[in-house]
């Protein structure tokens, strides 16, 4: 097979259909999808599953629940995580009663906050006396629970069996769980994953909620651009449920209840909303049978998950945000485009490559040519329900983000007028074609791509996207630039350094003009 491909390659140009990932698609009796890729060159199996739910399935008040839920899926089952399930269940019920009362107090605290009587609901001094009493009561229950608990046993079982890279992620459109196990432990994976899907136990719910809030502080609140990026995205999306952050609003995370998580589980974690994926050293026939045995026992959900019906409103006017942040001056531009799998998405992928990279137009035009920027970027992003294109740059010392912004528009305007030369287009396509090989180097990256494509709406894009990208013409590129890259379709974030220049950079010499490019 491969030898034949090499023979073709000698001809000089790359074959259009470089390499297909041999995926077998099956369905279990309960509606769960199963994707299998047999690869024999390492004695491991990378296994994962995707729940077709993400932040876009939330609503105000429970933003962040999809992600918090992901954390809860590691807390165990009736037999994993506790020495005494009956006692455990009783304690959890008792904890819920106390938390219910605490929620009533939190309602009072919110009212006090609205009236301006307290300044911050999260400050320990601002809690009510009753809340603090209940908190002690709750802590006592946690202590009791620890006596019967086996900490992080779910992880321990995998770790003690050679599992590696156990992790999960949540995005706007999907939640995925994955791990790599030794090839002889495939049945362990089936057992562990089907057990937690069949009967997860959400113990330590409230401590985990705090963990997630710390995660928010780490990623969003305490990074130089985190809060601004969140605000920019909230501004960009008008109606599509992408305008809240995946991690959730700070007011919502600490108010999500276990009951809400239970409800979320029964709707979105039903087998007809899931896809399991295996990549590695196993026999597909056998694996399908074992999957039916383990996952097939999970009853089909009574209701199907609802479709997201809200479409993004057509933007009528340019949106702009000016931010002072601890960062170098820079500009970030986003345009509304199309969702995953849309016929124009392939030309947008090609455009992303034409603009970015060291031989791309932004680098040549802005960095080396006009010498306005020290860094530029461009990328396309197609999500399940809507898409965007992003471009931007960091201003060179002595220049402004607005100059960088205008120069990006100049590059796009050129593309609106003239078609991309054949050689430039071929160069980009060659890189997509070579990428088709590079992505096949080992099990985990293949699993990850299948997760992404399935979660975005169609796993077969792992193979079908490549020929569609190769088929993109210069006329297609010209058309999409004219269609999507308009003023009223964009949002712009302009960043300048908070407090002026970097501290103690006041003596920096004015930007000197570097010698002009010595070529061409």
């Amino acid at each position, binding site marked *: 097979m491969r030898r034949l491909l090499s023979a073709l390659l000698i001809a000089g140009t790359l074959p259009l259909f470089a390499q297909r990932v041999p995926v077998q698609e099956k369905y279990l009796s309960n509606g769960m999808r199963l994707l299998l890729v047999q690869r024999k060159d390492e004695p491991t199996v990378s296994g994962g599953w995707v729940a077709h739910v993400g932040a876009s399935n939330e609503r105000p008040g429970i933003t962040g629940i999809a992600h918090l839920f992901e954390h809860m899926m590691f807390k165990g089952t009736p037999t994993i995580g506790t020495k005494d399930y009956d006692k455990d269940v009783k304690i959890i019920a008792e904890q819920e009663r106390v938390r219910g009362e605490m929620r009533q107090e939190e309602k009072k605290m919110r009212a006090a906050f609205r009236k301006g009587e307290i300044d911050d609901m999260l400050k320990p001094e601002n809690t009510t006396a009753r809340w603090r009493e209940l908190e002690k009561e709750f802590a006592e229950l946690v202590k009791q629970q620890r006596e019967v608990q086996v900490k992080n046993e779910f992880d321990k079982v995998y770790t003690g069996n050679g599992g590696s890279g156990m992790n999960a992620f949540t995005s706007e459109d999907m939640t995925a769980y994955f791990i790599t196990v030794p090839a002889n432990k495939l049945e362990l994976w089936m057992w562990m994953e089907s057990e937690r899907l069949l009967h997860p136990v959400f113990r330590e719910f409230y401590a985990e909620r705090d963990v997630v809030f710390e995660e928010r502080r780490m990623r969003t609140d305490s990074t130089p651009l985190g809060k601004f990026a969140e605000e920019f995205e909230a501004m960009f999306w008008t109606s599509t449920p992408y305008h809240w952050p995946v991690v959730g609003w700070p007011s919502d995370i600490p108010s999500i209840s276990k009951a809400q998580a239970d409800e979320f589980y029964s709707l979105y974690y039903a087998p007809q909303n899931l896809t399991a994926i295996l990549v590695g050293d196993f026999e597909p026939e056998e694996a399908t049978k074992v999957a039916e045995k383990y996952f097939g026992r999970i009853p089909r959900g009574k209701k199907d998950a609802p479709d997201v019906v809200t479409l993004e409103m057509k933007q009528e006017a340019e949106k702009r945000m000016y931010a002072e942040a601890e960062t170098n001056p820079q500009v970030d531009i986003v345009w509304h485009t199309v969702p995953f799998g849309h016929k124009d998405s392939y030309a947008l992928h090609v455009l992303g490559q034409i603009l970015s990279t060291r031989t791309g137009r932004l680098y040549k035009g802005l960095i080396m040519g006009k010498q306005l920027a*020290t860094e530029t970027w461009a990328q396309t992003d197609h999500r399940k329900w809507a898409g965007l294109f992003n471009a*931007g740059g960091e201003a060179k010392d002595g220049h402004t983000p607005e100059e960088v912004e205008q120069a990006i528009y100049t590059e796009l305007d050129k593309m609106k007028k003239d078609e991309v030369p054949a050689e430039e287009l071929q160069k980009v396509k060659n890189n997509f074609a070579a990428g088709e090989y590079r992505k096949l180097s080992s099990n985990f990256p293949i699993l990850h791509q299948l997760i992404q494509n399935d979660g975005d709406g169609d796993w077969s894009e792992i193979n079908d996207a490549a020929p569609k990208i190769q088929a993109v013409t210069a006329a297609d590129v010209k058309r999409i630039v004219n269609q999507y890259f308009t003023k009223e379709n964009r949002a712009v974030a302009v960043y300048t350094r908070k407090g002026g220049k970097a501290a103690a950079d006041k003596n920096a010499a004015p930007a000197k003009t570097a010698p002009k490019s010595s070529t061409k």
Partner: protein
Amino acid sequence: MKNHFRCFIPLLALAGAVLSSFSVTAADSTSLTAEIPNRPEKLKFPPLQYDPPNPRDYRVQLKSGPIAYVVPDRELPLVNISVYVRTGEYLDVKGKEGVADLTGTLLARGGTKSLTAEQLEEKLAFLAAQLGSAVGETQGSISLNLLSKDLDEGLAILREVMTEPRFQEDKIALFKDQELQAMRQRNDDSSSIESRERAFLAFGEDFWANQYDTEASIKSVTREDMQKFHQRWFHPDNFIVAVNGDFERDEMIAKLEKLFGKWPFKGDKPPAIPTKTKFAEPGIYIVDKEVNQGRVGIMLPGIKRDNPDYFAVTIMNDILGGGGFTSRIMNKVRSDEGLAYSAGSSFPGGVYYPLTFTAAFQSKSRTVPYATSIVLEQIKDFFKEAVSDEEMHVSKRSFIDRFPRVFSTKSQVAARFADDEFTGRFAKDPDYWKEYRTRLDAVTKEDVLRVAKKYLTPDKVVILIVGQKDEILKGHPNHAAVTLDGLVPTHRIIDVPLRDPMTMKPMTK
């Protein structure tokens, strides 16, 4: 968003390097009729045999100078070649800090004698070939990944890049600008402040690895400095090579001889890497920074990787804080108390000089003292009694059963062996990987207790905190007994000023 607009949030920040292996068929005889057990221990698994690759099978002493690890792999029509160079930032010239880094970057980015930088980039891009170069602290590297059909053309380019780089002036100016831009960001992110100050405390202000490039030093670097640096160190006698992919072994060896033969200049053998580090005085060091989450690092003097205690230390750290969700620090700080998203420890063995033990986490300002007290307690408790049998079992199995993933791809095989050659492990301990599992398995609970007593020394603890000092000092009313200064025997809290990003001199408020 320089990297990604899109938001994926993983469960674990500490997820280790994705290790991965090669084929032993595990003919599974799952009994499909058997009932599903209620506990995973009741499942039966077929055995999995695995023998790691032997470096001798791939090692070639080239006549042209370098030692190469040649690993054919016909699965995909790609070739990957990496040249590791005995050089590094430790050879930076005083006053011209940054010359190593600039030379490293510009080798691949600055054109060659026959090709301008633009022509070189276009050529590589059209071939969809990836060429990169860099000089790090103790190693330089040049790497090329390309389609095998383009191999000869690619090697010709690689030769020219290594022997006749152009160091084009406008590219030098650009990379200097980019360096200066990066410098301006030095105090923007609390995590960059933390990692920098940690290294100052761990190894001393004077240690070579803590000599940063400054605006003045970067500006003083000239094209000639780079040419000199390049010609002095980038010589085949200083090269170790890793190559894997779509080729026949003997053909590749012949190509490599051609690639490195008749080198146009003669270089020097680099001096030994200086190893004299200085660990800071015990105490709590604080950098005041306006963020709502404090970053905490708790450090102790560490070891080198050839220390006989290395395997026992590895298991000790795994149980204490290295093993993710199965470790004690993660269980206490994250799962029990919800005080941090990422919490754990590392105790790597240094290659050239001892590194440190570091436990680290991030928590909201008001719970920083309490969370720190929990981690310190875990450290102190560790040497009071032996670890449990279960902890030993899980830790050992995790290392032993994951072992095949060290060599999961052919590029990992080539790179791992080349690294062992480069760092001298192959010369000293050629059967390191063959013996790895046996040595690890030989560690006893008593060994772990012994090394814990030896290395987990609370009286030497250095704690670095980056965050809102006033808020952190307030502590939390639920844990009023815990005060920050009470956490170290000396009760010392030392203010660490931010450094001027362009000169790295401490700033006065």
